C-alpha cells in the first residue's frame, strides 16, 4: 500500500488552507497556509509555544483542526485519515520506542502494524538494520541503547514501511553532535529516494540544512522561503539572528 504512486498531477506533499487550532481561549495555530513540495526537506522553525508541534500533530491526524483543511500526500486528513496514515511516518521527541522490547522486536512490531508480512518484512528489516548499522545490537533491549542509537532506531521504526512523507518533531533534541550528523545523513538518503520530510528543530545549523524554511510565531506563519530568502527578508546575517530577532519581536508583542 505504501508503495503506490501518488495521485496523478499532484506535486504537493502537504497543503494547508486556513488551518487553525484553538484549545479553549488559546489559539495555538491560526490561518496557516502552507505548501510543501514532494521530495523537499522542509524545516519548521519557531520559539517554544509557537505552534510547531500543534501543526505537525494536525498534519499527522493526531489533532483535529478547529477550522481549515490539511491535505497530506493527496488526501484530506480529516476525511481519509486511514489513507494518510499508511503513507506517512512520524517520529516524536519521545521516539515512541518500547524500552522493554529488543531492537529487532521494535522494528518487527512497527513493520507489522504497517501491514508488512512474511518474507517481505523479514528481508526489509534485515536491510534496514544493516543500513543504520544496528544489526549487532538486534537482541538488545531498546531501553539500554544510548540516545543516539535510540534515535536511529526510532527513525528506522518510523520508516520501516517506506512512507512517502516523514514528520520529524525535534528529532535531534538531546543527542550528541556525531549522532546528529549521522542522523542528517540518513535524512538526506531518504530525501534522495523521494521521501518528503518535514522537520522541526531548535538547532540553527540544522535549519540551514533544509531546502525551505517556515517560521512560526505565536501560531502565525511569519516567514517562508529558502535560507537565502529568509535571510534577505529579515535582513539578518544568519538564521540564528533571524530566530533571536523573531523571539525579541514576539516577546515585545506579548508584553
Amino acid at each position: 500500500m505504501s508503495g503506490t504512486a501518488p495521485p496523478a498531477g499532484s506535486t504537493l506533499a502537504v497543503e494547508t488552507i486556513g488551518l487553525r487550532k484553538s484549545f479553549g481561549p488559546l489559539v495555538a495555530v491560526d490561518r496557516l497556509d502552507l505548501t510543501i513540495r514532494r521530495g523537499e526537506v522542509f524545516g519548521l522553525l519557531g520559539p517554544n509555544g509557537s505552534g510547531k508541534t500543534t501543526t505537525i500533530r494536525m498534519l499527522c491526524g493526531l489533532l483535529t483542526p478547529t477550522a481549515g483543511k490539511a491535505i497530506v500526500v493527496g488526501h484530506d486528513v480529516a476525511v481519509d485519515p486511514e489513507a494518510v496514515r499508511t503513507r506517512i511516518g512520524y517520529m516524536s521527541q519521545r521516539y515512541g520506542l518500547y524500552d522493554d522490547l529488543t531492537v529487532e522486536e521494535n522494528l518487527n512490531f512497527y513493520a507489522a502494524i504497517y501491514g508488512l508480512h512474511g518474507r517481505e518484512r523479514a528481508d526489509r528489516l534485515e536491510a534496514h538494520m544493516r543500513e543504520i548499522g544496528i544489526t549487532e545490537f538486534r537482541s538488545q533491549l531498546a531501553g539500554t541503547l544510548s540516545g543516539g542509537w535510540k534515535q536511529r532506531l526510532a527513525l528506522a521504526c518510523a520508516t520501516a514501511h517506506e512512507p512517502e512523507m516523514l514528520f520529524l518533531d525535534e528529532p535531534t533534541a538531546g543527542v550528541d553532535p556525531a549522532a546528529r550528523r549521522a542522523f542528517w545523513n540518513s535524512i538526506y538518503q531518504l530525501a534522495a529516494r523521494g521521501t518528503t520530510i518535514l522537520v522541526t528543530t531548535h538547532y540553527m545549523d540544522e535549519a540551514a540544512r533544509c531546502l525551505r524554511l517556515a517560521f512560526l510565531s505565536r501560531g502565525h506563519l511569519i516567514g517562508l522561503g529558502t535560507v537565502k530568502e529568509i535571510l534577505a527578508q529579515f535582513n539578518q546575517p544568519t538564521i540564528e539572528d533571524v530566530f533571536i530577532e523573531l523571539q525579541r519581536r514576539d516577546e515585545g508583542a506579548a508584553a
Partner: protein
Amino acid sequence: MTVLERLRYARFWPMLWKEFIQMRRDRLTFLMMTGLPAIQLLLFGYAIQTDVRHLRTVVLDESRTAESRALVTVMANTGNFDVVGNVASREAIRIAIENGEANAALVIPPDYASDVMRGRTATAQMIVDAADPQSSAAAISGAQLAAQVRATQIVGERLSIAPPLDMRVRPWYNPAQRSAVFIVPGVIGILLTITMTLIAGIAVVRERERGTLEQLVVTPIGKTSLMLGKLIPFVVVGYVQMSVVMGLGKLIFDIPVRGSVLLLYALTVPFIVASLGVGLFISTFARSQAQAMQLAFFFMLPNILLSGYIFPRMAMPEPAQWIGLALPLTYYLKVLRGILLKGVGLGELWRPSASLIALALLFFVVSVRRFTKTID
C-alpha cells in the same frame, strides 16, 4: 481478501504479540499475575474466618459439683468455647481477660447445684471481652445455646420425658460451615478485578506516558485493533488465573465445583468486559502509572467491602447496599457462588447475569468513548 486472510493480517495480532512479550519481561506484572492468585487464595482462604469459634474461656467454678461440671461440658460442646483453665477468683478472671489469655469466663456461683436440686432457677454468669463485637456475638449465642440445652436436659431428667422440641439445622451448600468455602470463589472475582482494572489500566497508562500510544495512533492500526490487541492478553491472563484458583481451591480447601464450569467461563465475559472498562476509564484520568495504581486501589476498596465478598450485604446500611448495586463484582459473586457452591444454572442466575451484562455494556461504552476522545 477472504475473511480468513483478513483475520490473519488483522493489525491487532502484532499488538497481541507485543503485549505478551512485555508481560513476560515486566517482572512486577509477571509476579502480580502468577504470585497474586496463590497469595490471595492462601491469605483469604485461611485468614478470613468470619465465624468466630473456640473462644478461649476460663472457668471459675465455686460450686464444684457434678452439676456444675455438666454445665461446663455442655458449654464446651457448643464449639464456641475452649476451656483453657480454671481460676480461683474474680480478680484472676479480670487478669486473664486483660492480658489476653482468655476472651470469656464462666462463673458458676457456690449455690448453683443446690438451686438446681431444689427446683429454683439457678444462675451462672458469662463474662465476655466484647471489644470485638464478632467474638462477643459468638460468646453470647454460645452461652444462650448452652443454657437452653442444659435446661432442657435438667427438665427431661426430672420429669423423665423426651424433649418436646428438637430443631435440626441443616446447613446446605457448606455443611461444615467453613469460611473458605464462602470466600475462595470470591477470590476469583477479586483477582479478575485486580488484573483487569489495575494491571490493564497501568499498561495503557504506560503507553501514554512513554509516548508510544501517540506513535500507535499515527499508524494505520485503528482504534478497535489497538484496544483489542491491548486488552485481549489480559483476558487470557484472567482466565488462567481463574482456572488456577479453582484448581488450587479444590486441592487445598476442597471447594466444590457443582455447576457448569462452561457457564461460569461464559458469564465471566461480561464481568471481564466491565472491569476492563473501569481500567480503561482509569487510564484516561491517570497522568502516571502511580496515579493509575492509586485510582485502581480506590476502586478496589468498595469492591472488597461492599460487594458481599467478605461481609454480607444484608447486614449493611441501605446506602452501602446501593453502592454495592453499582459494582459488577456484586453480581459476579452471586454467579460464582451460585455455580460453584449451589450448582445452579442460568435459569436461577438470570437476574445477576442480566445486571452484569447491562453494567458491562454501560462501563465499556462510556470508557471506550472517553478513551478514543483522549487519543484524538
